[in-house]
Each structure stands twice: as C-alpha cells, then as structure tokens.
C-alpha cells in the first residue's frame, strides 16, 4: 500500500477536524462580542505612524471625523500613546457615541432601546447627564468607597482586546456568561445569561430585557467583586467591617450586594411577596428556572429561591439621568426606561426603588 497519499492527507484531516471542533465548541466566551476574535481589526483603533495619506484600498482617509469601516480614518489629535488613532476615551467614543452600528454608551442615544448599562457622562456633560449621575469619563477622583485617585477611562473597566467576561469586563474573577440558551434550562454555573449576541442587533444584545443574572456563588457575586475593584468599601461579606450585620437578624452597615436573599429574614426586612407583586421589577441574582422579570404582578418566588440583590439591582453600571445612576423603578410603573420610572424626583424615586423589596414606610 502506498502510504504517501495517506500521510499527505492526514495533516489536512487533522486541520479539518480542528476547524470543525472549533466550530462545534460553544461560542459562549470566544465569539459574539465585537472586541474579540475575527471581528476586531487592528487598524480600527491603531495607527503605526499616526499618518495616513491614503486608505487601505488606496482611497481617501477621513481625518478628524468618526470611525470609518475598513480602518480608513485617523483622529485629529495625536500621536497618542499605545499607537491609538485618538486619545483613549475619544477613540472608544468614536464608535460608541452617536453611532447606530455600535452601542452608544454616552449620554442620550438614538438607537431606541433601554440600555441595560444606562449611560456614561463626561466632564462637562450637561443636564440631564450631569457628572453626579453616573460614571464620568475623564474625571480624576477617588471613587466613592475607594482608596486612590483614578482617571476614568473606558479601559478601567473594559478590556479593549476582549476578554472571556461579560461585556469584556476586566477583573481577577471573570464574569462568565452564556448566550442564546433558553432561560428555563440555562447554564447556571455562569454569572450572566445573555439572551443573544448578534452582530448589529443592538437592542437584542444590550437591552435591559436581554440580560439576566445568575447566582453562581451563593456567598458572593463576581459582578459585585468587579465593582469593588474601585468601590472597595461598598462590597464585602456579611459580618465583615464593610457590610456588617448577620444573616439572621440583618442590622447591616451597608446594603449587601451578595449572600442576602430577599425575604429570607422575614419580619421588618425585605419581602419576597412584595417583589413578586411588582409589575415591573429590578434585576436580581437568581438561579430559579422562572424568569424574575416575567409574571408581572404574580411572581411565585419564595425565600427559598434565593433571589439576591447586587450592585446592578439598584444602579445602572454606566449611569443614567438619576443621582448616582439609581434605577427609580416603581413596581407599578407603566413603562421601564433607563431611569426606571420616568420623570420622578429622588424622593419618590428612592421609595420606588427601595419599595421593590421593602415595605417599610411604603
């Protein structure tokens, strides 16, 4: 038998198998976010010499304008550190502000969906996105609960070149996620269930209703750990000097962001019945098969289901039009906006938000 054809064919077969295997492997943390893999092209953001007399196909180059497909653009400010076409935040905003092909994360947007993360603001932002309503790009300050000054850039939180975490978030503990699974049978050993990630479908990918949060670890939350990277004093363990209290009687020093389940203590504490009765609910961490945002007014969760509030329960990650980026969502709200219930002041808004789980004074 002539072995040569087989030997020649074998590497090809192996390669084919590898390609097939890669194709079969779940895309969960390897594809589906633009900033990883084949979607991200170096010249989208980088320029070697801060010079482009012509484009990559010989055509014109847009100088000083916004991002252009195919890399045929260059910022008007440079050269910049890390070979960037624009200073860091400006570079990110060249795609992520005022565009319809990428999620708009700064201030108002025209892409017509309720953003899960809300909206950043920037130094000098005017109403209704003032600096005291969320994370402020370019601002140098000690984060609330933090220790040292930082200047807020997109890269403080997000990995430019992608990561295995939800929304390419940084952090020592990955915020793992799945995409496209049916909710009732979803993988619960990850932090986040993402309804989908389809390139170009901004609403389907990034809306408030496109995300749910699992409770992979009943004693902690990777999301809260991530936030704690800057807001050190605001997260910890029940009984420690940051959160304090105990699981039986409460008495917390700061609002817990993990471990503590709605309605677990009974009495004058949180009420799962109250949460269940909400027509519109805030996000929580949940491993229940039933969808916590469904069953308006008639949720069937019990304390045993272990619904747990975390940072994103009360705050938009980026911010919104409310102080502290708080989500002033009333349980009987007619609509859900990035602010929760629209057009409510802080007094009513806080009662709305607290009232999602707490009946005291409501």
């Amino acid at each position: 038998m002539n072995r040569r054809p087989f030997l020649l064919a074998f590497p090809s077969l192996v390669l084919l198998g590898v390609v097939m295997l890669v194709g079969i492997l779940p895309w969960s943390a390897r594809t589906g976010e633009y900033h990883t893999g084949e979607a991200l092209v170096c010249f989208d953001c980088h320029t070697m010499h801060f010079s482009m007399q012509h484009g990559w196909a010989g055509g014109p180059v847009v100088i000083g304008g916004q991002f252009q497909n195919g890399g045929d653009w260059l910022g008007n400010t440079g050269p910049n550190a890390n070979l960037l076409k624009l200073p860091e935040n400006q570079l990110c905003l060249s795609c992520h502000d005022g565009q319809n092909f990428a999620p708009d994360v700064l201030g108002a947007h025209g892409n017509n969906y309720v953003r899960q993360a809300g909206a950043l603001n920037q130094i000098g932002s005017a109403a209704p996105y003032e600096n005291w309503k969320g994370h402020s790009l370019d601002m140098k300050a000690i984060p609330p609960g933090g220790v040292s000054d930082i200047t807020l850039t997109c890269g403080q939180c997000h990995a430019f070149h992608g990561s295995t975490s939800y929304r390419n978030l940084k952090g020592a503990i990955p915020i793992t996620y799945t995409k496209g699974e049916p909710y009732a049978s979803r993988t619960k050993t990850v932090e986040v269930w993402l309804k989908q990630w389809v390139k170009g479908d901004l609403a389907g990918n990034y809306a408030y209703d496109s995300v749910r949060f699992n409770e992979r670890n009943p004693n902690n939350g990777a999301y809260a750990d991530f936030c704690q990277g800057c807001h050190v004093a605001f997260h910890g363990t029940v009984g420690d000097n940051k959160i304090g209290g105990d699981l039986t009687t409460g008495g917390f020093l700061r609002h817990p962001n993990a471990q503590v389940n709605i309605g677990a203590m009974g009495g004058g504490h949180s009420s799962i019945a109250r949460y269940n009765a909400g027509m519109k609910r805030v996000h929580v961490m949940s491993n229940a098969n039933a969808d916590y945002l469904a069953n308006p007014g008639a949720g069937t969760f019990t304390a045993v289901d272990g619904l747990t509030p975390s940072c994103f329960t009360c705050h938009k990650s980026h911010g919104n039009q409310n102080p502290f980026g708080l989500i002033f969502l009333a349980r009987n709200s007619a609509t859900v906006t990035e602010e929760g219930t629209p057009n409510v002041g802080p007094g009513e808004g806080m009662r709305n938000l607290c009232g999602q789980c707490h009946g005291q004074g409501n």
Partner: protein
Amino acid sequence: MKTRMIVSFIGLAAVTVLATVLLLTSGGRTGEYHVGGQLLCFDCHTMHFSMQHGFDGGAVAGTPAPGGNWLGASGPNHYLLKMPANDLCKSCHDGQTFAPDVVAANTNASPANGREAGALNEQASGAPYDTWKGHTLGSTAKPPGYDPAKINLGATWYTGETVGLECLHCHTQHGRAPAYRNLGPRALTAPTYHIAAVNDLNSDVWINLASYTAGSGVAGTFNPYYATANIFFNRNDGAQGLKYSNRIGTFCAACHANFHGGPGDATVGGTGTPAEEFIRHPTAQVSIGALSGGHSSLSRYVAATTKVKGLTKNYTTYAETSPGCITCHKAHGNQNPFGLIFLNRFATSVNEEGGLGQGQVADVPTGYRNLCGQCHGQGN
C-alpha cells in the same frame, strides 16, 4: 319610574361610599410625617455610607437637610442609618425648627399648654431635665414595673437593658398608620386617633383640629398638632392581658405592666363594686366619683377650670371619666419628678409641668397636692 329609582339608588350608594371614604381618611391615616408619602428613605438611610454629592448634585451637609442631602459623621451604622439610632432621631427632633423638639427644652415656641408628651431627657441633659424626671434616652435601667407577660408580650421584647432606651422602643420609625404618634410595639393593638373639630368617641385619641397636613416644617403649623390644649383621650374599655380604658394605657404597660390595670387586675387590686382598696392607682375602668365618701370626687374634678386629662366619653358632665397613665404623667417627661403633671385645678397658666394656683410657690409637695387634688379632696 323604576329607572329613576335605580338611578337614585346608585347615586345614593355612591354618595354613601364617598362619604365613608372621606370619614375613614380623616382618621388615623394621614397627618403623620413618618408614614406613606411623606417619609423618604434617604432622610434616614444611606446604602453605602458615602455621599460625594447630594441627590441634586449639590453639597452634602453633616446634619439633616431636605432632599436627603446629608450624612452623619459617625458610621457606617447598623440598619444603614445615617447616624446611630437615637442620634438620628434627635437630628430632626431635637434643636430643630422644622420638626417637633422632644428632648429637654423646646427649641420652638411652646404649643398651647405645652407639648402633650412633654420632654425626654438624657444623661447629658442636666437640670431641669434630670434623668429622674421622665424617660431617659440611652438608659439601660430595667423599666419600672416591667412584666410584659401580663399584657401578652414576649419576655424579651424590650432590648433597652442592652442597647439603652431608644425612640424606637415606643415609636415605629416607618410609621404605623392607625396608631397615634406611630406608637408600638406592633404586637399590641394600636391606640387610634382622630383629627377633626368633632370628636369620634370610638377612637382613643381626639386631636381637636379641623385638619392637619404633616411635613410643613413650620412650628406654627405643627405646634397645634402636639399641643396639650388640643389633645383629648376618650374612654373605651377593654382588656389586653390587663384592663384598659384607652389603649394608651396598654401601650405604657408594654414596659410598665405592673403599674397598669383596672379593678380586679392583680396589678392594681381593688375590691367591691365600685372597687376600692387598690394596691396601685388604677389606670383603667374606674370612674372618678363612682364611690362616694372618702374617695375621688367627680364634682371636684368637674369644678376645676384647668383639668388633667381624664379618659372620658362626656366632655360636659365628665360622667364615667377614668384616670389613665397620661392623666398624671407626661409621656416623655418634664421638669418634675417622674414626669408628673403638677396642675392646680385653678391654675393661672398651664405648661408642660402643670401650673400653679394663685399665690402658690413651686415645689414638689405643692405640685403633688395639686395633682392629686384634681380628683381627691382628702387633705386638700
């Protein structure tokens, strides 16, 4: 014909329902700041004990400020409080002009005849609000007469011997809509109240005001709501472990059960009908003057032009008026021992300590005789 009747009936029914709703809502459902729409979470609570800016983007004060734009210096505190519990309550209710001042001297002008509840004291208060003149915030002393089992409360409901007397031992901080002054504990039936120019004898407390809107922040507006002159206590007999003629008495018994009760209760004793030979002064179901001879005298009480507050259903003849706890004591305290109300029957003026008669000099024996003399002629 039938159509007209049906239409009329529906109209009458609607009017009746509306009237009923209006009647219900003028009782104990509004008019208190700590309930419903008035109470804002951020007045007292902070989620992370951090406020780099206010809820309006502005500055953050170190003492209570409108809109929740303040944070205490000491924390974080349990229950996400902006300050330790009593300090937090006092941050509004002591030394402020926008809320009733309940500790020691009144920052605001005195309401008519003084604050109905008088004044709390603290270790630091000093004369004339010494700690033996009323309820002492922070005191770890066992309440005098403490025996909660007598009114069907758990033996350990009161935690003051460990944490010190707190405002929250008596008042429910998040409000208790049907309860006069948000009084608790919740295991006891609330003393009800009624705000109107006309008394509702079925409620425990009548606040004689045509109307009241809480949250004005102006003493001229809230003073009448807390004025001794405007508050009356109706008599409605019942029992919760011990007899009462007004649920205020049962509330007091949560801590002072051995001092409360009516004829036949082991706490006050009494024999016969009407009862006499009490072992403690009754606080319920004993009508002034019911037993003639050397006992209390209704005519004496009626003749007084400045009366202590009896528990009554008849504000003209005062027939079947019973003494209660608040007849003799200010609920918080005052400048007299035990918070007693040393009110002469013909006082020239009335304040939180009572009032002296013509030519009287203020001292404890005079005051005590004034108080007892409201109802008792013996030795007076």
